[in-house]
């Protein structure tokens, strides 16, 4: 159980959270038209006659969008409804050319499913938790109004009009902002693994409606509010925090929560009322008569299932159990599909799993951090990294030399082997040379030698350091250790 409670003036309150996530389906064309669905095009350049709702135009379902939604459903262990249907949600707005949105109210494509979030002590998630998903349905996005183009007029951009969205509706199973954040991150990871949504919240390809209510521990559900269109994980957590506290304040000061739609202000981290239930739309949902019911064959569903990649949970388990990677490293490496993909490419180039995991976690992530780069535009390829790691494994480079070589790789883009040759950074295991340097150092430091021999064994590190320094870091540390021990004994 979550330990998250809001401390009111009259006692503790539990928070109950459900999320409706709108995820834009990755597809070349829109849900019911052939127009392109890419982001960032000039206004009104990706609009077909259907998207503009010209007289007599008809929607035709795009099989790829349906396939992506089914794959998503399978990835969250959900029921795939072999028979589903599209409904019209009727309302007037200038960004909605048809005067209705084609959605699925009565018979969604995907039914009950779930995903698991992991325990996270730091975030206050005490144990692993299963979050239910009530349904996923597919629907059309609306266009966009632009109010900043003209002093008295608004402009309409229909590029998004008709783009396919999945609405992923969770059960009210989350009890803290942290759990909601973990759910969103996990869902986003799964969507990106599956490839059904790019999860890009800044560009609006994923956004959440946040349902929040509060109650006394053990009481039935309270009245909820819905905060619309929140577009980052952090904002979702902020919105919940603010909204739950606001509700507690209202109730404790004798007020009642109104079921209403609210808006989140990212600048202040607060929510405000948008419209109450009284002036809520009557959407007059009814089955879209332009479309036949959607019937899926077993072969189609089987094909969707077969097309799924290994998903984050399965991958994490395999990394730990088969590759022997630590639980923490495995969790980090599998959290984002790009990281896992990069890491597995590194293994495919011959790198050893544990060594590779450690190197990615420390060296690569460190470098990316410094450079402000992400794994998608990583300046080194997995093949180049594998070459570097092989040079460590075969003894050519020590750990510290490998760091130097990696820096040069990032600077120049050259291969590790080329840098080692050019810069002479090769580690030496030449015992004659090392012995000569050791002899010289012992001779130069008679005092230390005296102390060591009289029992101050901690000075061993001093001699190692001096030797390595004299050899410009290129001596094989193991060989230095062995030879020093011999010389000092």
């Amino acid at each position, binding site marked *: 159980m979550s330990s998250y409670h809001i401390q009111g003036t009259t006692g503790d309150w539990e928070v109950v959270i459900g999320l409706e996530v709108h995820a834009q389906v990755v597809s070349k064309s829109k849900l019911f038209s052939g127009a392109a669905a890419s982001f960032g095009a000039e206004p009104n350049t990706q609009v077909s*006659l259907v998207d503009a709702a010209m007289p007599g135009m008809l929607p035709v379902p795009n099989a790829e969008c349906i396939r992506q939604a089914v794959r998503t459903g399978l990835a969250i262990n959900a029921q795939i409804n072999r028979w589903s249907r599209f409904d019209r949600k009727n309302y007037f707005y200038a960004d909605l050319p048809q005067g209705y949105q084609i959605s699925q109210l009565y018979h969604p494509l995907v039914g009950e499913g779930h995903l698991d979030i992991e325990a996270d002590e730091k975030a206050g998630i005490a144990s692993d938790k299963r979050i239910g998903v009530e349904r996923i349905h597919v629907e059309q996005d609306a266009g966009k109004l632009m109010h900043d183009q003209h002093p008295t007029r608004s402009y309409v951009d229909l590029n998004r009009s008709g783009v396919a969205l999945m609405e992923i509706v969770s059960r009210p199973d989350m009890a803290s902002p942290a759990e909601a954040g973990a759910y969103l991150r996990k869902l986003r990871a799964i969507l990106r693994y599956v490839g059904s949504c790019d999860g890009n919240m800044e560009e609006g390809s994923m956004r959440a409606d946040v349902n929040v209510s509060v109650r006394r521990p053990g009481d039935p559900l309270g009245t909820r509010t819905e905060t619309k269109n929140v577009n980052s994980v952090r904002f979702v957590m902020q919105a919940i925090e603010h909204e739950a506290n606001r509700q507690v304040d209202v109730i404790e000061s004798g007020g009642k929560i109104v079921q209403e739609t609210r808006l989140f202000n990212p600048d202040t981290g607060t929510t405000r009322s948008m419209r109450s239930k009284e002036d809520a739309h009557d959407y*007059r949902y009814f089955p879209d*008569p332009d479309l036949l019911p959607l019937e899926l064959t077993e072969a189609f569903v089987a094909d969707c299932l077969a097309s799924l990649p290994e998903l984050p949970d399965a991958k994490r388990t395999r990394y730990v159990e088969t590759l022997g990677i630590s639980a923490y490293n495995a969790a980090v490496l599998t959290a984002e599909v790009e990281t896992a993909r990069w890491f597995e490419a590194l293994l495919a180039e011959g790198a050893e799993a544990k060594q590779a995991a450690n190197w990615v976690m420390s060296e690569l992530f460190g470098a990316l951090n410094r450079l402000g780069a992400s794994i998608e535009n990583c300046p080194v390829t997995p093949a180049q990294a594998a070459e570097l790691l092989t040079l460590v494994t075969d003894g050519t480079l020590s750990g510290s030399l490998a760091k130097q070589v990696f820096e040069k790789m990032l600077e120049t883009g050259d291969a590790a082997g080329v840098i080692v040759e050019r810069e002479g950074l090769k580690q030496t295991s030449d015992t004659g040379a090392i012995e000569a340097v050791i002899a010289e150092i012992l001779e130069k430091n008679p005092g230390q030698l005296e102390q060591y021999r009289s029992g101050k064994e901690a000075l061993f590190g001093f001699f190692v350091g001096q030797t390595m320094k004299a050899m410009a870091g290129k001596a094989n540390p193991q060989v230095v250790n062995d030879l020093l021990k011999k010389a000092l004994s």
Partner: protein
Amino acid sequence: MTILTDLGIAALRDGVAKGEFSARDVALAFNDAVAGAKALNAFIVETPDHALAAADAADKDRASGTLKPLSGVPIGMKDLFATQGVQTTAASHMLEGFTPQYESTVSGNLWRAGAGMLGKLNLDQFAMGSSNETSFFGNVISPWRRNNGDTTALAPGGSSGGSSSAIAARIVPGATGTDTGGSIRQPAAFTGISGIKPTYGRCSRWGVVAFASSLDQAGPMARDVRDCAILLENMAGFDAKDATSLNLPVPNWEAGLSASLKGKKVGIPKEYRVDGMPAEIEALWEQGINWLKDAGAEIVDVSLPHTKYALPAYYIIAPAEASSNLARYDGVRYGLRDLPDGANLQDMYAATRAAGFGAEVKRRILIGTYVLSAGFYDAYYTQAQKVRTLIARDFDRAWESCDLLLTPTAPSAAFGLGEKSADPLAMYLNDVFTVPTSLAGLPAMSVPGGLDAQGLPLGLQIIGKALDEQSVLNAGLAIEERAGFAARPGKWW
């Protein structure tokens, strides 16, 4: 000397093919007839150049031996079909001046088959009406008049009233219609011509201004059954742009025509004997039964027990769909925009839709909005859908004992303009015999059977099984041959 405008589609096609006359002469003759019939108000836009261009192409094709199925045949196009570069209004102020950049699939099919367009035919606004009195562009007048010297302007039926009037007046040899609850069959009956609504899904709805999507179906109207078969063959066909289009080959209906009904059973549904139906219509129905017997059919009595619920269910489902389909006419992107000074978006919607829609369209939008509203949905829309299922089941049961059904097309002959326009319910009753087939998506045809005592045409309706247009056409032909309907309106326009 042949009067070219007296010829039907088959005769024009064959005459051009044989070189008896040129396609250009045909087009010129019909263009003249159209230009001379303004009093009928059958056209919203005349397109003589389109007809001439198609005719010239036909004459060229004849010279090179590459004639197409409709080479040399000019037709009228109901102004519900989007025609590229030619104003398409659905007879509404809302779309006055709207010129599509696209061609509807059905009209495109016809042009590809070689047909030419004489113009865009008037209709009830957004195809809502049974008398062609709801057009923003004025009433269409039937060429028919009562035989008692009364010059009352008569309704050509609706919504395809421009089509029926123009064909009956012989200013076009054939035309497209659309039928949502009877809009091809009832006007055909009122004007002594033939018209067939094919099985739902035979003709693409793409590019046809939508009224009620689950019911709308295009079909041909012409002087006789053969001409209907020819036109339908060139209108129908699978269209991937319409999700409800049937992916089936188009039969060769003309070649399959046969007036022999040996081995066919024709059902007579007892529920179609409605109170107050004129005796002349009863008598014609009886006559029709005898004609079909004569053609070799066996007559059986059948029951369609839910018939009486069809009209109320239709007037819930069709307005419900219409209220949503017509939401796109909002003044934002095309068509009429009424933007009063200082108006906000809601004001613009209200002003635009108040000015752009006629009274009947508004009535149906209001009905449709009401029946879909929270709290009323189950009582109206859900219930109506159940009735629709029961009506389809009635027909399925009937097909266990027969192949076709014979009924009157409409409960009356043409009435005078204005006689029923004040009473929507009386107007809606016109569709009582045609609506059940629309709800079931079945093919149905009206053919002229005779004249009533006032000299006005009466039609008989033949209803067939889904996809069996051929049997419908054949029964129509059997009646046509026996009825020998040769009456035509005297020219007064």
